[in-house]
């Protein structure tokens, strides 16, 4: 059975290895707010922070473009940086970019690689813990939204979403609904129904 747990709640009397939990005195304890499924013993955060992992796609805004490096605002605990030696993209301040996390280096900066400038469009911030739900299983959810609104959407794991073209308002509304109801089952059907009713 799934249940909503808060920080400090005992998940199990046995020591288990679960994400976002810790073991104290032989008991497994939740450290965040999340949905705990005791059959699969998985704890999915409903409130959480983004922690950079190599290979993740992020959306950011260029804060300061210099000759060799660019500082990127990522809406995260650490600053992002692009080393221009490895890329041939021209970037100026306030450009919205899509990039991949290369590493989190020792000084506490997120090194990004493979930048791509996203021209125009609109950027919105969502809770990073809801990003997997926005994407859906094998990106089904986001494909559904972008196909029916004809908008091009790019979702960063850091919780920034870029939307351009098509019905931007409807796409934004759909994403906001996903964020709000991420923990309620049957979400894909509801979003499909919502998109269909708005289109007519």
């Amino acid at each position, binding site marked *: 059975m799934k249940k*909503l747990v*808060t*920080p*400090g709640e*005992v998940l199990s009397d046995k020591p288990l290895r679960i994400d*976002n939990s*810790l073991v*104290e*005195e032989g008991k497994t*304890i939740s*450290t*965040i*707010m999340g949905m705990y499924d005791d059959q699969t013993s998985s704890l999915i*955060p*409903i*409130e*959480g*922070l983004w*922690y950079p992992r190599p290979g993740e796609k992020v959306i950011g805004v260029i804060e300061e473009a210099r000759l060799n490096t660019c500082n990127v605002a990522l809406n995260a*605990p*650490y*600053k992002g940086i692009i080393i221009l030696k490895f890329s041939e993209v021209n970037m100026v301040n306030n450009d919205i970019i899509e990039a991949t996390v290369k590493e989190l280096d020792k*000084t*506490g900066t997120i090194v990004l690689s493979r930048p791509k400038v996203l021209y125009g469009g609109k950027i919105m911030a969502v*809770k990073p*813990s809801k990003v997997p739900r926005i994407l859906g299983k094998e990106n089904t959810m986001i494909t559904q939204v972008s196909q029916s609104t004809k908008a091009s959407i790019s979702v960063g794991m850091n919780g920034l979403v870029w939307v351009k073209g098509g019905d931007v308002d409807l796409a934004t509304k759909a994403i906001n609904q996903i964020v*709000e*109801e991420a*923990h*309620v089952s*049957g979400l894909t059907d*509801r979003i499909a129904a919502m998109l269909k009713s708005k289109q007519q």
Partner: protein
Amino acid sequence: MEKLELLINGKRLDGRAMDELRKISITASPIRNATGSAYIEWGNNKILAAVYGPREALPRHTADPDRAVVKCRYTMAPFSSLEEHGRPGMNRRAIEISKVTKEVFENVILLDLFPGTSIDIFVEVLQSDGGTRAAGITCASVALAASGIPMRDMPYAVSAGKVGETVILDLNKIEDNYSDADMPMAINPRNKEVTLLQMDGELTKDHFKQAVEMILKSGEAITKLQKEALRLPYEKAQERYNR
């Protein structure tokens, strides 16, 4: 100072029993810009708490390369109490309360996950009626849970005190000023760790034990309220489709 009679016919001035809390209501996430926030109404206390971060620790020399640092700012609004509060911002008392609040949360947040950053906790007292540091800690712990910052536990805080030979729980402003002792205490509910213990006045050993018992007993109710406040927005979204 003239002694005030605080207990009349076995009841307190506001009609509460000796071990009765004031009415508490907590709202989670009222502030959109913050990472996490909470609002508490504890009797006549009205307190807003907001958490920002983990973010870059500024000024840079405050950062710790091994763990996150917690910064706390407790302030009373100039209009918060009947007495004059003068200039807004930090005075001696606010600096002290900021420090003890910081130390409560340093012990529960998993700081080593975010090295080099700072977690900023703001506690703003809008209206005060005694026991604001306890209410502030209770509120800030809900704000931290709502922000998704990993914590070992959700602490709560209450004060207990003594009038004559009677131990009372959750002192209000008048009781705080004229009682013989006042002891705020912050506790991690899961393993009953004490993270804050201060005392004004004097308590005997027996009275101290009695006060701690009262606090631990009332803590169950407070923890329940904190959890309900956090669950409410999610249960509301769920209810919309379960009807």
